[in-house]
C-alpha cells in the first residue's frame, strides 16, 4: 500500500505539469497588465500635476511653469513648460532617499508602496471602454471602495513611521477624514447600485448608454443628482483636496504625513495622489455621467471615442476639483466632520431612501 | 317530674354562672340569686318528695329519663335522671340544708371581699350535689362526684390567703382524688364487662350473672374507695378536719350534711353491686373510722375540729349500717345526721361569729349571750348522742341494731357492734364536752365574751328550722318503708349469697333491735354523765387525767399520727420519686443525649491532646501543604484572562491526549 500511495503522489504531482505553461502565460499577462496600468497611472498623474499647475496659475492670472522643455523636435514646439513635471519626476527619482534617523525605516519604506499599490490596484477595474476593462469584476464598485481603504492604512503608517508629530497628526487627520467621508460616499454609490442592480462597472455604464438623458445623474430626479453631489464632495475629502486638505495643511502641520518623505518615496505619494484624482474622476463619470458612453447616444460611441469620453469626463471632474481648490478656503476640523456626519450622510440616506421608494412605488 | 329535676339541676347552675360573671355588679352582690335559686329548688324538691310520699311504695321509681350523650358508634354513653324514693329523700335533704346554709351565709359572710364568689361556689356545689343525686349512671355520678370535690376545694380554700386554708383545700382534693381513682377503676371494671354505665343495666347484668365472684368484689371495693375518699373514711379521713379551714356554713353544708354523705349515698345507690365480702370490708372500714374519729374528738380543743371528727365518726356509723346490711339504717342516719350535724356546725358558726375564735379554751358561758344558739345546739347534741326521742336516737339505734344482728349471725364479727357501742358512748361524751365548754361555766376569755352577741336573724332562723327537723320523731316509719333495702331479687337475682345474707339478717333483726336500743340509751347516758362530771361539775380534772394518760392523750391529740405517717411515707415517697425522676430525666436521659454530644467533643479533644505531634503534625502539615498549594495556585488566579485561556486550552489538549491515548 505505501508503494501504491507513493505512486499516487507522484502521479498527482505530475498532473500539474501540463498546466504549468498555461500558468506561466497567465502570469506574464498579469505582469504586462500591471506594467501598463502603472505606466498609465504615472502618466496620468504627471499630466494631472501639470494641469494643476497650469490651472492654478491661470486662475491666479499668471502663467505657471513655462521654461522646461526638450530638444525633441515636435515636442519642443509644445512649449508652456510641458516637461516641467517630467523633470520634477526625474529630480525626485534622482534625489537622495533621506530617512530620518528616528524613523522606523521599514515602515517608512513600506508606507508609500502601500498607498501607491492600492491606487494602482483600483485602476484594474476601471472601465475605459466597452471592452477596455482590465479586470471586469462582478463586484467592481465594491472592490473600488474596498481597495481605496488600503490608502488609509498606508497614510497612517507613513505618518507614524516618520516619527514626527506633524506627520502623525496629519496621518490621523487624513485617516479620520477618509473614514468619515467613506460613509456618505459609499451610500451614494449604493444609490447607483440600487438603480442599476449590479456591482459591475461595465453594466453600470451600459445601463446609461443611449445619450446624456440616460445618465444616472438625471435619473430618479433629484435623488441621484443629490447622490452625485454628495459623492463629489466626499471624493474631495477622500482625496484630501481643498477645501478639505486638512491632512496636508502646510500652514498648520507642514504637509502632514509626507513631511519626512523626499525623493522617490515622496514621488510615490505624489503620484498616488494625482492618480487618485483621476481615479475619482473616472469613478464619478462611470457612476453618474455615463462612463464611456457618448452623450449623443450611439453617435461618437465607437471604441476609441469611448476612451475619449472617459478621459473627457474624468478631466472635467478633475478640472472642477482644481477649480474648487483655488476658490474655496480650508475648513476647520469640526466643520469637516460636521459636513460629513450631519450633512452628507443624512442626505445620502435620504437619497437612497428616495430611490428605493421610487423603485418600489413606480416600477 | 323530669322537668322539675332538670330545673332543680339548672337553677343552681344558672345561679353559679350569673354569680361568677356578673355577681359583683348585682345589688347585694347577688346573694339573693343563689339563695333564691336554692329555695326554688327546695320547693321543687319538696314537690317531688310529696309525690313520692303520695305514692308511698318501697323503692318506688318515680321517673326516669335518658338522653343519648356521647355516641361512639358501638358504645353509647347516656345521660339520664333516675328519681326514686332515695333520690327524693336526698333531694330534700340537699336542697333544704343548702338553702338554709345559703340563708345563714348571708349573715355569716357579710362583708367578705369575695362575697359573690362565695355564693357562686355554693351554687356550684349545690348543682354538683344535686346532679350526683339525680343521675342514673356511674359515669354521671363520677362526673358530679369530681365536681363536688371541685366545689369543696374551692370553698375550703375560700380564704386562700391563709396558707392553712390553701393547704387544706389541696389536701382535700388530692385525697379525694386518690379515692376517685379507685372508684374510676371500679367503674372501668364494671364498664368493661357490661359495656354500660347505666345503673339499671349494670344491676341487671350483675343479676344475670355476667359479673360475679372476685371480680365483682374487687369492683365493689374499688367503687367504695370513692366513698372512702369522699366520706372521709379511714384511711383517707385526714382531709376532713383540715377542711374546717373553710367558712363554717360551708362546713355545715358540705363537710357535714351533704357532700361527705355522698359516699354513703353512692354505696346505697349501688348497693346491689356489693358482694358480702365487699360489704364486710365496708363494715370494718366504717367501724374503724367510727372509733378512731370518736376517740380523737375527745381531746381536740377546736370546736369545728371536734365536730369534724364527730362527722367522720358518724359517717363510719353509716358505712357500718350499710356494710352490715342495714341499708335503711345507714341512709336514715344519713338524713338525720345531715340535719343535726348541719345544725351543730351552724351553731358553732354562730358562736365563732360571735367570739371570733374556734378554740373552746377561749369560750365558756355563752349560754346567756346567745340563747337561741345554745338551745338549738343542745337539741342537736342530744340528737347526735342518741337521746330518746330525737332523730339521732332512731337512726343510730337502727345502725346498732343492724350491726348487732350481723354480729349475731356471724359471731366472728361481733366486735363491730361492740366498738360501735363504745363509740356511741364516746360520742355522747365529747359532744356534751363541747356544750359544757362552750356555753356553760365562766367565760375564760372575758374580752371575747364581752363582745359576743346573738347572731342576726338570717343565721338563727336556719338554726331553728334545723332544730325542729332534728327532733323529727316521725321520720323513722316513713323511711323504713320508703327506703327498703333493694334486693338483687328485684333485678331477677340468683346471686345466692346476697339473698342468704339478707335472709339471715332478717331473722335476727327483731331481737337485735331491742337489745341495741337499750344498750345505746345506756351508753349515751353514761357518756353524758361522764361529760357532765368532768366539764360541768368539774369533779374530775380533765387536765389531770390527760397528764396521767399522757401517751394516750398525745396519741389522740396528734390524731393517731395519721398526717405524720402520710407525710413520712406517701407524700415523701411521691416527692422523692418525683425528684428522682426529674433528676433521672435531667441527668441520665438528657445526660445520655447531651453526653453523646459531649462524648464526641471529648473524644476529639483527647485525640487532639494525645496526637498533637503525630496526627496534629500531619494535620498541620496538610494544612501548611494546602496553604502552600493555595499560595502557589493563587498564581493561577492571575486575573489575567490570557492565563485563563491558556489553562483552558491546556486542559483541552490534555483531555484530547487522554482521550486519544
Amino acid at each position, binding site marked *: 500500500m505505501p508503494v501504491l500511495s507513493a505512486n499516487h503522489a507522484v502521479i498527482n504531482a505530475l498532473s500539474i505539469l501540463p498546466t504549468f505553461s498555461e500558468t506561466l502565460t497567465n502570469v506574464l499577462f498579469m505582469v504586462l497588465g500591471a506594467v501598463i496600468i502603472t505606466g498609465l497611472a504615472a502618466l496620468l498623474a504627471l499630466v494631472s500635476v501639470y494641469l494643476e499647475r497650469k490651472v492654478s496659475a491661470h486662475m491666479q492670472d499668471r502663467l505657471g511653469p513655462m521654461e522646461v522643455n526638450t530638444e525633441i523636435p515636435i515636442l519642443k514646439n509644445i512649449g508652456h513648460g510641458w516637461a516641467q513635471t517630467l523633470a520634477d519626476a526625474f529630480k525626485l527619482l534622482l534625489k537622495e532617499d533621506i530617512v530620518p534617523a528616528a524613523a522606523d525605516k521599514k515602515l517608512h519604506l513600506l508606507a508609500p508602496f502601500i498607498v501607491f499599490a492600492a491606487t494602482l490596484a483600483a485602476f484594474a477595474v476601471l472601465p475605459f471602454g466597452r471592452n477596455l476593462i482590465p479586470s471586469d469584476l462582478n463586484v467592481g464598485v465594491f472592490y473600488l471602495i*474596498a481597495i481605496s481603504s488600503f490608502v488609509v492604512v498606508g497614510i497612517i503608517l507613513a505618518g507614524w513611521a516618520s516619527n514626527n508629530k506633524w506627520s502623525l497628526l496629519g496621518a490621523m487627520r487624513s485617516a479620520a477624514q477618509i473614514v468619515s467621508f467613506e460613509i456618505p460616499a459609499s451610500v451614494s454609490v449604493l444609490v447607483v447600485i440600487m438603480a442599476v442592480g449590479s456591482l459591475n462597472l461595465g453594466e453600470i455604464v451600459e445601463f446609461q448608454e443611449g445619450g446624456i438623458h440616460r445618465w444616472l445623474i438625471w435619473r430618479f430626479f433629484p435623488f441621484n443628482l443629490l447622490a452625485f453631489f454628495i459623492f463629489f464632495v466626499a471624493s474631495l475629502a477622500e482625496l484630501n483636496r481643498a477645501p478639505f486638505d486638512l491632512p496636508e495643511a502646510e500652514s498648520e502641520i507642514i504637509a502632514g504625513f509626507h513631511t519626512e518623505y523626499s525623493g522617490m518615496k515622496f514621488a510615490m505619494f505624489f503620484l498616488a495622489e494625482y492618480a487618485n484624482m483621476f481615479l475619482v474622476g473616472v469613478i464619478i463619470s462611470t457612476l453618474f455621467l455615463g462612463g464611456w458612453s457618448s452623450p449623443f447616444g450611439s453617435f461618437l460611441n465607437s471604441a476609441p471615442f469611448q476612451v475619449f469620453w472617459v478621459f473627457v469626463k474624468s478631466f472635467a471632474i478633475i478640472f472642477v476639483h482644481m477649480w474648487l481648490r483655488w476658490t474655496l478656503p480650508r475648513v476647520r476640523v469640526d466643520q469637516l466632520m460636521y459636513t460629513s456626519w450631519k450633512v452628507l450622510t443624512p442626505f445620502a440616506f435620504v437619497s437612497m431612501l428616495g430611490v428605493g421608494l421610487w423603485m418600489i412605488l413606480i416600477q | 317530674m323530669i322537668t322539675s329535676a332538670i330545673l332543680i339541676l339548672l337553677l343552681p347552675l344558672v345561679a353559679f354562672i350569673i354569680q361568677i360573671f356578673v355577681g359583683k355588679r348585682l345589688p347585694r352582690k347577688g346573694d339573693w340569686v343563689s339563695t333564691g335559686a336554692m329555695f326554688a329548688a327546695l320547693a321543687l324538691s319538696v314537690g317531688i318528695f310529696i309525690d313520692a310520699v303520695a305514692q308511698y311504695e318501697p323503692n318506688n321509681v318515680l321517673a326516669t329519663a335518658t338522653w343519648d350523650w356521647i355516641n361512639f358508634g358501638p358504645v353509647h354513653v347516656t345521660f339520664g335522671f333516675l328519681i326514686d324514693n332515695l333520690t327524693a329523700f336526698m333531694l330534700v335533704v340537699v336542697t333544704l340544708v343548702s338553702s338554709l346554709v345559703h340563708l345563714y351565709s348571708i349573715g355569716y359572710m357579710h362583708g367578705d371581699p369575695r362575697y359573690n364568689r362565695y355564693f357562686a361556689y355554693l351554687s356550684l356545689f349545690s348543682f354538683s350535689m344535686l346532679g350526683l343525686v339525680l343521675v342514673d349512671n356511674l359515669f354521671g355520678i363520677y362526673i358530679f362526684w369530681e365536681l363536688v370535690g371541685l366545689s369543696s376545694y374551692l370553698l375550703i380554700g375560700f380564704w386562700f390567703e391563709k396558707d392553712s386554708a390553701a393547704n387544706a383545700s389541696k389536701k382535700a382534693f388530692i385525697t379525694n382524688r386518690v379515692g376517685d381513682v379507685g372508684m374510676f377503676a371500679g367503674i372501668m371494671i364494671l364498664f368493661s364487662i357490661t359495656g354500660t354505665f347505666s345503673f339499671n343495666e349494670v344491676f341487671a347484668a350483675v343479676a344475670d350473672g355476667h359479673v360475679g365472684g372476685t371480680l365483682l368484689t374487687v369492683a365493689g371495693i374499688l367503687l367504695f374507695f370513692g366513698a372512702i375518699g369522699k366520706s372521709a373514711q379511714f384511711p383517707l379521713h385526714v382531709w376532713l378536719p383540715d377542711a374546717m379551714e373553710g367558712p363554717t356554713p360551708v362546713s355545715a353544708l358540705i363537710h357535714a350534711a351533704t357532700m361527705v354523705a355522698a359516699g354513703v349515698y353512692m354505696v346505697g345507690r349501688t348497693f346491689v353491686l356489693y358482694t358480702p365480702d365487699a360489704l364486710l370490708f365496708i363494715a370494718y372500714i366504717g367501724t374503724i373510722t367510727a372509733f378512731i374519729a370518736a376517740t380523737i374528738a375527745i381531746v381536740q380543743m377546736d370546736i369545728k375540729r371536734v365536730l369534724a371528727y364527730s362527722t367522720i365518726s358518724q359517717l363510719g356509723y353509716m358505712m357500718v349500717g350499710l356494710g352490715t346490711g342495714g341499708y335503711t339504717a345507714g341512709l336514715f342516719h344519713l338524713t338525720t345526721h345531715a340535719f343535726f350535724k348541719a345544725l351543730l356546725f351552724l351553731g358553732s358558726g354562730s358562736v365563732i361569729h360571735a367570739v371570733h375564735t374556734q378554740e373552746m379554751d377561749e369560750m365558756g358561758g355563752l349560754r346567756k349571750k346567745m340563747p337561741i344558739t345554745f338551745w338549738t345546739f343542745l337539741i342537736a347534741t342530744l340528737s347526735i348522742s342518741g337521746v330518746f326521742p330525737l332523730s339521732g336516737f332512731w337512726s343510730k339505734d337502727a345502725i346498732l341494731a343492724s350491726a348487732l344482728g350481723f354480729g349475731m349471725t356471724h359471731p366472728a364479727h361481733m366486735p363491730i357492734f361492740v366498738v360501735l357501742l363504745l363509740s356511741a358512748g364516746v360520742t355522747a361524751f365529747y359532744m356534751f364536752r363541747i356544750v359544757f365548754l362552750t356555753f356553760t361555766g365562766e367565760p375564760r376569755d372575758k374580752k371575747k365574751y364581752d363582745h359576743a352577741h346573738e347572731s342576726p336573724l338570717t343565721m338563727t332562723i336556719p338554726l331553728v328550722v334545723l332544730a325542729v327537723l332534728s327532733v323529727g320523731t316521725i321520720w323513722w316509719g316513713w323511711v323504713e318503708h320508703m327506703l327498703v333495702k333493694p334486693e338483687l331479687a328485684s333485678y331477677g337475682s340468683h346471686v345466692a349469697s346476697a339473698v342468704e345474707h339478707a335472709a339471715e339478717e332478717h331473722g335476727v333483726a327483731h331481737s337485735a333491735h331491742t337489745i341495741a336500743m337499750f344498750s345505746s340509751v345506756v351508753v349515751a347516758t353514761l357518756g353524758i354523765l361522764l361529760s357532765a362530771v368532768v366539764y360541768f361539775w368539774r369533779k374530775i380534772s380533765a387536765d389531770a387525767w390527760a397528764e396521767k394518760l399522757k401517751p394516750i392523750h398525745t396519741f389522740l391529740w396528734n390524731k393517731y399520727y395519721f398526717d405524720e405517717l402520710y407525710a413520712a411515707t406517701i407524700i415523701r415517697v411521691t416527692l422523692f420519686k418525683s425528684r428522682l425522676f426529674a433528676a433521672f430525666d435531667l441527668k441520665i436521659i438528657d445526660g445520655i443525649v447531651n453526653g453523646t454530644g459531649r462524648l464526641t467533643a471529648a473524644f476529639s479533644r483527647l485525640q487532639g491532646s494525645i496526637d498533637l505531634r503525630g496526627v496534629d503534625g500531619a494535620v498541620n502539615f496538610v494544612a501548611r501543604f494546602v496553604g502552600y498549594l493555595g499560595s502557589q495556585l493563587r498564581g493561577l488566579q492571575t486575573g489575567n484572562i490570557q492565563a485563563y485561556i491558556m489553562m483552558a486550552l491546556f486542559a483541552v489538549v490534555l483531555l484530547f491526549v487522554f482521550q486519544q491515548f
Partner: protein
Amino acid sequence: MQDIMFYMFAALTIASAGVMVFSRSVIYSAVGLLFTFFGVAGIYVLLAADFVAVAQVMIYVGGILVLLLFGVMLSQRVTGVNMRTETLQTVPAAIVAVGVLFILFRVISKTEWLVKAKTTFEPTTAKLGTLLMTDYLIPFEIVSVLLLGALIGAAFIARKG
C-alpha cells in the same frame, strides 16, 4: 494555476500572520495583519467568494485595521517609535498552541469530510443578498441592531470621564 495561487496566498497569509504574531512592535503587527487580511481575501477569491473577499478587505482593512491603528496610537506615547509589546508565558503558550494545532490537524485529517466540490464560479452577490433578505433576515436584522448597539456603546465607553 489555482493551486499556485493558493499556495502563494497561503504563504502570504501565514507569513504575514507570523509577522503579526512574533513581531514585538505593535505597528509591525498591524502591518502583518494588513497583509494577512489581504491574503485571506485572496483565499476567499480562490474559494469563489468574491463578495466575501471584498467585504473582507473593506471591513477588515478599511474598518478594523484602521480602528486598531487608531487604538494603538491613541493609547501610546504618540511619537515614540518604540511601540513594543511584551510577551508573557511564551513557552507554555507555545506548547499549548502546538498542542492545539496538533489536535486540529489530527481532527482535520482524520475526519471524512463530505466533499462535493463545485467547479463553477458564479457571482455570489445576488445570491447572498437574496439569502440575507430571506432565510437570514432575522439574523441580519439582529446583526444590524447589534452594530448599532456596538456603535453607541463604543462611543459611550470611549467617551472621557
